[in-house]
Structure formats: structure tokens, C-alpha cells
């Protein structure tokens, strides 16, 4: 399930609305012929942190693009490819980067207005625990808003205020979901 990586292309960069981040866009095609867009919002100031998101290209115009399901299967390989991009392109670009994501609610969970401990969050959190070694990263999470933060030890060890400042950056990219 988690053993196949799709070939991906770097599509380009996009500046954030307020210029606080640069979004790196990647694209890959699944076996089911769906095009997935992987979006990494890279903050370099004040601290290097990357917020990762992905969605189906067919849903790009929808406001709920991160929540919608494709129902075509192949989820494992999609996530695996995203992790590959994180390792290959984002960590290589700057080894001091930290990562963050929010497990978006599924359509059913959205109907119930459930934001805490979503299914996607549980799934991704488990993967991250297995993939990012605690030697280099410290994992933290906030279940009430399904947010997961992977802090780079090398960078944050001598900066006790870094985490709080990174969370401020996260608020900009998740204005509705961030409740801290």
C-alpha cells in the first residue's frame, strides 16, 4: 500500500497573499488517472517551516478541495509520494525546515462540524510518527483542531520561542482552523 511512489513534476512557485510565504507546487498523476496537486507553503521568516497540503486537480476550484474524496483508491501511494517530495525536495532545500499540516475533515465530518481528531489527522499522524525520526524531529499535535507539527530539533533546540512563533505563522495559512 505504502510502497509505490509516483513520478512528480515541480510546477512552479506562487507567492502568498500577504507575501509571508512562497507556495511550491508539485503535480503527479495516479494509476487511476487523477492528477494530484501537492502544495507546500514555505515560510522562511521568522523560522523555516513548511505547511503541506494536497488535493485532486479536479477539485481545485472548490472551496472544500482539501476535504473532498476522490473515491478511486490508491490513497497510500499518494501520501507516500507526498512524503517523498517532503524528503527529496523540501528537506534537501533547507535541512532546518519544520513541517506542519492539518488533517482536513471528510465531507461527513464537515456535515457534523467535526474538526477535532479527524480521520485524516489520525491516519497522517500515524504515518508521520513512523517516517520522521525523533532524533531529528520533535512531534507535537493538537487534537482539538487536528493539527500536527514536526519541529526540526537542530533548528529549534536553542530557540525556545520558535514553536510559538511558528504557530503564529500557521495561523496565517489556516485562519479558520487554527484555534490556539
Amino acid at each position: 500500500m505504502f510502497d509505490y511512489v509516483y513520478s512528480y513534476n515541480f510546477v512552479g512557485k506562487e507567492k502568498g497573499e500577504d507575501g509571508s510565504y512562497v507556495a511550491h507546487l508539485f503535480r503527479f498523476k495516479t494509476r487511476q488517472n487523477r492528477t494530484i496537486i501537492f502544495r507546500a507553503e514555505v515560510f522562511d521568516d521568522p523560522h523555516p517551516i513548511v505547511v503541506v497540503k494536497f488535493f485532486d486537480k479536479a477539485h481545485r476550484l472548490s472551496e472544500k478541495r482539501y476535504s473532498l474524496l476522490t473515491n478511486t483508491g490508491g490513497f497510500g501511494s499518494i501520501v507516500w509520494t507526498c512524503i517523498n517530495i517532503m524528503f527529496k525536495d523540501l528537506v534537501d532545500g533547507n535541512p532546518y525546515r519544520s513541517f506542519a499540516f492539518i488533517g482536513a475533515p471528510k465531507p461527513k465530518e464537515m456535515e457534523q462540524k467535526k474538526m477535532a481528531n479527524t480521520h485524516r489527522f489520525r491516519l497522517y499522524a500515524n504515518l508521520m510518527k513512523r517516517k520522521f525520526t525523533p532524533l531529528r524531529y520533535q512531534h507535537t499535535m493538537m487534537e482539538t483542531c487536528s493539527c500536527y507539527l514536526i519541529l526540526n530539533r537542530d533548528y529549534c533546540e536553542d530557540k525556545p520561542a520558535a514553536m510559538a512563533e511558528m504557530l503564529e505563522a500557521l495561523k496565517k495559512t489556516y485562519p479558520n482552523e487554527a484555534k490556539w
Partner: protein
Amino acid sequence: MNSFPLNLHSTEPDSFVRTSNDAVKTIKRAIDMRNGLKSLSNLFKYPAMLVVFPAGYLFVYISIWVYNRRLSKACSEKIHLGNYRQLREELLALDELTNKLKSVRVVPAPQKKTPWYLVPLMRQILKMGKTIKAYHASIKKQVDVFDEPISPMPNGWKLVTGTEMFEARVKGYEYLI
């Protein structure tokens, strides 16, 4: 297009060259040897045996001394922190071994009543136990570092400790499938 040398199973480098397993093996053998001395200690109850077989006594003493040296060397090599999983596995193995060490306590500390010829042997054997315990403590200390936050946790945020991550790593795959 990108090509993928697929080693994505972890972020941990492959170049983990460490003698940690050697240390565990040495400790295992040391404990076996120590437990084997139980029957030997009965022999020492009869000083006549030692008079008859001084060469035997010397042989036992020298072999324990040599083994102690090897053990100290294996345990003094610093662990290269390249692979968290192996570090945890080492700790698990050491937990088991130290429990074994506690359960079979054959050699007490030398006392006033202890015959002079047994004292050097006992000292060597006790030294063996101390080395193993010190090594266990140092590994535990290294592992515990990853269970503590590097910065104060803001309200509502929870730390995922190294222990939790190790457990997730072991069970994770089955759970996800």
C-alpha cells in the same frame, strides 16, 4: 521527471555502523559466564581444591579479567545516534539482560569473613555487573532525552514522545493496512 532511489522507509540514514549489538552480545555472554560461576563458587568452598589446582584458579581469574576488559571496551564505545530504532532495541535488550542479572544474584560483595583467595575473583565479577548497569543507564539516559520537549508546549499542544513513536513504528504498518 524525478527518479526515485526508493529508500523511504525512514528518514534515518543507512550508514549506521555501530558496535551496539556487539555490546549486547558481550553482555549476554558475560551474564552467562557470571551465572556459570555459580557452580564454580561451590568449588571454592573447599580451599583444598585450590591448592590442588592453582592453575585452574589462575585460569578462571585471568579469563574473567580478560572478559571484563572486553566488556568495558564494548560498553565504553559511544553510541552513534544515527538510528533511533536500534537505540530502542538496544535498550529493550538491555532491560531484559539487567532483569536477568538481578534475578540471579550469585556473587555477594566480599566481606571480612570472605577468604582472601576469593576476594579478587568476586571483585572482578562485581565489576562486570557494574559495567553492565552503567551501560544500561547511559542508554536509558540517551533515550529519555527524546521524551522531553525542546521548548515549552503552548496550551492545548501535546508532545508525541519518542516512546510513543517507537511503539507506532512497530505496530503502525499493521494498523494502517
